[in-house]
Every structure is written in structure tokens, then in C-alpha cells.
């Protein structure tokens, strides 16, 4: 059933934590260049799904295929080197290092690969990488904070920086776990604009988001997850009109 331009295929994935069936029979196809949103109530299994994709968790059964390569069983660093980057729900950053270095490290990973004994060069002589990182920080509007320790940034800025850390690698697939949580309305809008901009460059994205404003302004496709199952998917309009979704999610607390 795989159409030719499906870049990510999560095939019949199950994930159990003891008695908890966190993911049940997930089948998800993401097409090249599209933004695919995953929505659903708390504890639905959204983050678990991303964890399975990037190799943090092994699925109990099923597999994940990215552009013809089976991801299941590979190490997280190998999966990243294939072109997949992720923004986490709680930012994973280098808190003790400067913002600039936080962004230079992923750029070096992209250029030098998984390991390089690069100890005779000086970091100061990496002017190309440095310039790339500064430009990236300019894009996300954080250039003025580049010398600050990343750990002392506000919550919203940490997320923006983490986004910059992913974008500088020009990943083919970007996974975003609630990228605007904890941001002000203004910062949220800036982030939406930024994400729209990279969409025009053809990057494929999977985005988890509670904010329906963000979802409906970005997504080409939406899958609705509840209690570990996909209960609906389709275009934003199809999903909006689906009564099952109304009941499970949209009509509830939101």
C-alpha cells in the first residue's frame, strides 16, 4: 500500500509497558515534504510514538521504515545520521554550554559524522561552522543571547534554541514534541512563521501539539491518537468534522 512518496512508515507498531498498552496497532504514513500533526489527550502515547521512531524505545512489535531503511534496532545516533532530528517535550540541551556552542555541536555532527578525533584543530578556527550557527541563531531571533549559558535561558528560549539545534542539521525529517509549549503568544506566532518557512524548503515534519491554533495553521495531515490507538486521520477539515474526534478530544476539555 506504500505510495512512492511516503518517507516515514510506522508499520503495525505496538508498545507495551508492563500491562499498559501505550501504542496499539499504529500504522502511520508520512509523505515527503508534508507536515503531519499528531494530536490527542494527555497520556495518549504521542511522545512514546516519537520515542519509538528515534530509537529511544524499541517497539514490542512492528517496525519503523524511513526512506527504505529499517530504523527499528538502530541506535539513536545512527538514526540521526540518517537525517532525523527531534525537539523534545522537555528541552534536551547542553545547559552548561553557551547558546552558540549548543548550536555548533549539531553542525559538527552533521559535518564530521558520528565520531572524529578532531583534537588538533582549534574551535576558533571553525569559522564556517561558527558562521552557520550564528546565522541559524539570527533566524530564530536569538543571536543576541549567543554567549549566555543555555541553562539560564527562559523556557521558551530553550525550545527555540533546541529547534535551532535541529534545523542547523537540515534534517530530512523533523520531529517536534510540543514545540510551542511554555511560549508566549508572540513567541508561538514567531515559531509558527519559522516552521512555515522551513516547510517551503521541503522538510518533512511530524508535530505533536496541544494548541489547535498551531495545528490547524501548519498541518497537511492530522492523526488523532487516544489510548494508544489512532482513532482518526485525514486532512484538517476531515478531522475537524469527525464526530469520534469531537468526543475523544476536541469536544472535551478543549
Amino acid at each position: 500500500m506504500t505510495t512512492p512518496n511516503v518517507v516515514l512508515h510506522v508499520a503495525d507498531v505496538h508498545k507495551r509497558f508492563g500491562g499498559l498498552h501505550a501504542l496499539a496497532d499504529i500504522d502511520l504514513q508520512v509523505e515527503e515534504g508534508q507536515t503531519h500533526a499528531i494530536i490527542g489527550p494527555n497520556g495518549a502515547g504521542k511522545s512514546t510514538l516519537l520515542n519509538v521512531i528515534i530509537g529511544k524505545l524499541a517497539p514490542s512489535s512492528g517496525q519503523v521504515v524511513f526512506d527504505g531503511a529499517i530504523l527499528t534496532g538502530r541506535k539513536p545516533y545512527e538514526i540521526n545520521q540518517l537525517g532525523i532530528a527531534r525537539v523534545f517535550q522537555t528541552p534536551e540541551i547542553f545547559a552548561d554550554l553557551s547558546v552558540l556552542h549548543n548550536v555548533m555541536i549539531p553542525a559538527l555532527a552533521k559535518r564530521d559524522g558520528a565520531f572524529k578525533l578532531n583534537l588538533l584543530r582549534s574551535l576558533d578556527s571553525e569559522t564556517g561552522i561558527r558562521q552557520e550557527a550564528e546565522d541559524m541563531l539570527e533566524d530564530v531571533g536569538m543571536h543576541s543571547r549567543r554567549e549566555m549559558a543555555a541553562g539560564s535561558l527562559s523556557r521558551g528560549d530553550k525550545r527555540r534554541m533546541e529547534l535551532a539545534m535541529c534545523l542547523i542539521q537540515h534534517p530530512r525529517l523533523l520531529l517536534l514534541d510540543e514545540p510551542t509549549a511554555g511560549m508566549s503568544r508572540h513567541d508561538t506566532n514567531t515559531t509558527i512563521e519559522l516552521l512555515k518557512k522551513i516547510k517551503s524548503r521541503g522538510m518533512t515534519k511530524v508535530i505533536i501539539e496541544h494548541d489547535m491554533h498551531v495545528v490547524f495553521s501548519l498541518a497537511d495531515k492530522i492523526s488523532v491518537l487516544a489510548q494508544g490507538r489512532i482513532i482518526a486521520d485525514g486532512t484538517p477539515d476531515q478531522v475537524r468534522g469527525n464526530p469520534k474526534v469531537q468526543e475523544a478530544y476536541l469536544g472535551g476539555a478543549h
Partner: protein
Amino acid sequence: MTVMSRNDLLLFLGFTVVVLAMPIWLHPFGAAYPDLLQRFMIYGIFAVGFNILFGLTGYLSFGHAAFFGVGSYAAVWSFKLLSLDAIPAMIFAIVISGLFALIIGYVSLRRSGIYFSILTLAFAQMSYNLAYSVLTPITNGETGLQLTLNDPRYLDRAMFEAAPGQPVPTLLGQSLGGFAGFYFCAGFLILAFFIAQRITSSPFGMMLKGIKSNQTRMNYTGFNTKPYTLAAFVISGMYAGLAGALLAVTDPLAGAERMQWTASGEVVLMTILGGAGTLVGPVIGAWLIKYFENIFSAINENILHRFFDFLPDGVDNVLVAISSKFVGEGWFLTLGLVFVLIVVFLPGGIMEGVRRIAHLFDRSRRSPTKPGKATPHPQPAE
């Protein structure tokens, strides 16, 4: 290769001057004699290397004395088998301790945190016991490995007649006793510092800091962190081997006690006392510990009695009884106490203390000109 940044260059030059001038500025402290100065250099190298693993990567090894000991044994064997010249001994020691670190590191780095520490400790204690008993043909067990008149020294004998008398290590035929020995060791400390400086400011060094800060992020960023930590482990093992070899150059007798856990713990203390992760901190920590060890372990009850003589009888006996527990053999008690104080009140070590004081001066100098500037500076990254 690129030139160093201005700050790095100044630090390096400053460090070099301080080290080379030690016989002068340590004179008032009564510490300007070769034997002690050599130990300052040797343990400085040990700590600088240890810091590459612990300070940059965050992996706390409790077994680095094993590599120090292996370096000593390898150097003495080089003196016995090859030549009394120090250079082949150093090279041999660095290679052997590097290989040894590769094996122990490969296994230990399968775990992190406390399990890593325990594994390194276990390996070091195994090495100590092997050296002490099982491997007696190589290590000469309890007596320690020594030079003798009958050593083969194939390289030396192939080139010239063996000199009569007790064999001692040399450098290109020159004796390495006294201050010559100190400057020989000082040269290596300066070189060791320079290399550590380069590593710290290289992309590789930044990866190590990234691993310390957030290993998970490193993995999801596309780095295979294992070879990075292993490289750091081997480099620091080679530093330890170099230090051990230098100790054998200045005193050609290698004993198993150099590998004991107390010796492994000592380099941890030096690094933390000075400031883990900083360049000069570990060296300062090593110097202070060796300096005070030298003083405290020389004090005995007689000296204490004379010291407290001015007090009434009874009182002075009590004070002597208490303080004698902290000197001589009890030096480790003092060391432990100082260590606890540092970790509790100054977890960043002496270098953090220096930074705090500099910060205070900075503020008091600035406050008259800019009163009411209440907003704290954005905290700069290291």
C-alpha cells in the same frame, strides 16, 4: 594547525614561567628542593590528565593509579632491558599504559555513573593484587622492581661499555639527579599542559563537554559517544603512565603500592580540590596536596609538644593528643577533612573560590560608578 587564541597563549606563557621559576618562588616556603619539586611536576601531570577524563567528560574513574603504576613498571623495565636513557623509558611507558587503559576503558565504559567508577576501582585493585603477588616475576612483588648491576640493558651494551657503579637513569648520558631531574619533569608538565589546553579548545574537547552536559542529547544529535569517552579515557591513562614513568626516572624503584586505591583517590582529590574542568585547577590541587603532605607527615609528637609548650601542663597534652591524630601517619585524616569542607562549601574547588573573589572585586569596583544597577549580569557560559 592554527595559532592559539590570545588568552590561551597568555595562560600558557604564564604557566610556563610559574613552573620554571618554582625553585625561586617556592624558596620562602621551604619547598624549593628537587625531590619535592619533582613530585609537584609528576602529580601535576597526573592531575592534568585525569581532568581530561573527569573534568571534561564527567566520568569519575577511581582506578587511575593502575595506569600510573603500569607506567612506573614499564619505565623500570625499559631501564633494565633496553637502556638507562629516560627517553625510551618514557615512550615505552606511555604506549604500555595507553594499551592498558584501552582494555580497562573499553570494559568500564560499558557503564556510566557510579557503576563506571566501581568498575575502574575493581580493575585497579585487581591490578594492584596482581602486581603484589601473581605477577611477581614481572613486578618483583613486595620488594618492588629495582635496577641492578646485572641488568642486560641490550641497547646500552651494544653501544658502549657499561659504566661501573650503581645504575641510574640518564638523559643522553647526563645524570638526571637534583635540579636536572626537576627541569626534565617540568618540561613534561609544560608539554602536558599545552596538549591539555589544545584538547580543551578543540572540537573534540567540546564534544567531551557535551557528553558531560547531556549525553542523551549527544546521541540524538548524531554522535556515537562511546569512542569519544574511550579516547578521553586512553589519553588520561597515557598521562598517568607518563607521570608514573617520571617517578621511576627520579627514583628507579617501582612498587605495587603505587596502584593502590588510596593513590587513585588522591588524584581525584587533587582535581576536585583545585577545580575539575578547569585547566590550572588540577595542577594547583596537586601542588597543594603534595606540599601539605610533605609538611604534615613530617610532624611528630615531639614537634607538637614544642609547639604547644607555652600552654599550661595538661592543656598542652590534650591538644597534642588531639592534633597528633592529624599529622604524620594521620595526614590522610586531615586531607579527608579538607576535602569534605571543599565539597560542601566550594564544590567548584579553589578555582571557583578565585572566581568568586574576582567577582566581588569586580562588583565593588563597579558599584560606585553605576549605583542601583540591580539586574544581575546574564550568566556567561564557561
